């Protein structure tokens, strides 16, 4: 055997430099300023005091934050619980080819083109008890509906608004997944005498696993960071009923200018999203590919 010497050339590090700079300016430096705020009490531009982990401790003990976090988790789970099954059902019902398929695709994708604050405004007017189509109709029917007065109504309205806005995304992803299944699978299922449910359970659902994972992650992250729509629709009210995490954060940072606690909170918020996505991703990977007997 001949010994080979590996040529050592440290110049290769220069190739990493552009990426390093991009990431530094786009992610690391902004994040570090937040870290900077989170460990100081800035009284005025000239006077600042290093406070260590004090803000973190304070934020962790904040009852309002706990409430907002719970509300947020409940909301995100509700969004997933409604949008994912609904999206799958919609995708299954969409025509596969021809002009109908194109027409339906455009119709379904329409709500995705509307900016967030416009969605909020649309629903604000739509749900108004005096002039809104939805609100007034419900009033006429004798249902005492008011998203500004009733916490439950406000919560449901925010949820329905998100379902209206984003279920099409789930549906489109599922539709793409469904279209990628070769015809032979359906033919084989017919030959094997599989019921419609068996086709869904053993062919369509497993083949949609990849796109569903993307849909769940996207919808989870997005709904966990929701801000604009409830801000426009309810302003977080009535009371704190629709004050989700990001809104609470904005109130702290912009409303009260408590930069220290807000920064500490931002970091915790970031870590929560990271952690939940990590858990979700790994769990879904496992569900899809694990060996049933547990042995390879």
């Amino acid at each position, binding site marked *: 055997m001949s010994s080979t010497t590996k040529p050592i050339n440290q110049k290769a590090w220069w190739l990493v430099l552009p990426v390093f700079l991009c990431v530094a300016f786009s992610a690391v430096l902004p994040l570090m300023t937040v870290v900077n705020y989170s460990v100081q009490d800035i009284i005025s531009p000239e006077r600042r005091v290093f406070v260590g982990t004090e803000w973190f401790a304070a934020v962790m003990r904040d009852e309002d934050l706990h409430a907002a976090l719970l509300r947020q988790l409940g909301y995100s789970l509700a969004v997933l619980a409604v949008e994912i099954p609904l999206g799958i059902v919609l995708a299954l019902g969409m025509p596969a080819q021809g002009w109908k398929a194109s027409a339906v695709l455009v119709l379904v994708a329409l709500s995705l083109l509307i900016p967030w604050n416009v969605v909020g405004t649309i629903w604000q007017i739509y749900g108004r008890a005096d002039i809104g189509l939805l609100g007034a109709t419900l009033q006429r029917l004798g249902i005492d509906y008011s998203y500004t007065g009733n916490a439950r109504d406000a919560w449901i309205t925010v949820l329905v608004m998100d379902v209206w806005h984003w279920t099409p995304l789930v549906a489109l992803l599922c539709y793409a997944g469904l279209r990628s299944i*070769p015809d*032979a*699978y359906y*033919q*084989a299922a*017919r*030959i*094997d*005498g*599989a*019921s419609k449910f*068996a086709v869904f359970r*053993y*062919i369509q659902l*497993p*083949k949609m696993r990849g796109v569903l994972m993307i849909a769940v992650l996207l919808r989870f992250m997005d709904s966990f960071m929701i801000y604009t729509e409830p801000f426009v629709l309810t302003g977080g009210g009535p009371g704190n009923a629709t004050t989700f995490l990001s809104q609470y954060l904005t109130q702290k940072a912009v409303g009260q200018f408590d930069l220290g606690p807000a920064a500490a909170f931002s970091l915790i918020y970031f870590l929560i999203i990271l952690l939940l996505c990590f858990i979700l991703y790994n769990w879904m990977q496992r569900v899809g*590919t694990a*060996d*049933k*007997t547990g*042995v*390879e």
Partner: protein
Amino acid sequence: MARIDLDLAHAYRPNPKDDSDYALLPLKMTFDDGGAYALLGPSGCGKTTLLNICSGLLVPSQGTVSFDGRDVTHDTPQARNIAQVFQFPVIYDTMTVAENLAFPLRNRGIAPGRIKQRVGRIAEMLELNGQLDQRAANLAADAKQKISLGRGLVREDVSAVLFDEPLTVIDPHLKWQLRRKLKQIHHELKLTLIYVTHDQVEALTFADQVVVMTRGRAVQVGPADALFERPAHTFVGHFIGSPGMNFLPAYASKGSVNVAGRAFALDRTLPEGELKLGVRPEYVSLAAANAPGALPVTVAQSQDVGTHVLVTGQFDGMTVKARLSPEISAPRRGDAAWLQVIGPHTCFYKDEELVA
């Protein structure tokens, strides 16, 4: 198990007018109960269409399909109780190998004990029994295709098992094994098997009866030796064999046939007029100069491929190929030689159909 009678035509577009509008031209065919058939032809000749019509995935645009005399033209594959295996492996990803094999039985509500027994039997036949508890998704392509084959064979009461080029994705050495396995299974289970392929070796080794198809037409149905010895259509002569049959223009008149300006006496009676002479390269031999039934050629190519020497001779712008034994000294490139083209194995065609 069933006898399948076809009397149909199929076009994918409405109101077919030309022959070219048809995927399948009007045909009448019978697949006998318990026979092993192959549908052989080039891509696009309609063999998969014919297969899908048999299985019920496709309803013919005209005519009928009947099983044992019962009209099943509009029945679903399930009602016909057909099994079909596709070109690319279809497996249910989330199931184990055993669950995959059991799926067609479970859908039909067979008792669990019976299912277990059948799955065990089929797994043993296909040598899958070591992998029964593994997830099917993690297996190699050939194991997946074995699962597909197994799902096709697991029901014992099927009318017929149809294969649509099932060995395309399999490695050559495994192909041999699986093909032998299928043949063996056919002997054991006595099922009606119909096998679609464009590979003549596969068709000829697997099937008792081969249906040769081209352009939506079944041009000949017969056992391997008939297709080789007496091709009923020039396409069969050309498609079967490697290389295919030699064809030379000929002109017949009373008791003799004229090939490229040379007249030969013939003991067979031929319809007078323009004909095509067909002779397999296997039956073309070297002849003495001016021997009756021989043509003088210039050798354009002479390839020794070990088992035989393939000589390509040219004569008056026509090409004649001959497979010669390696023992005799074959003519080399540029040599002049005489090749015997008329003999007992020579066939004559009029309008592409065999006449003598």
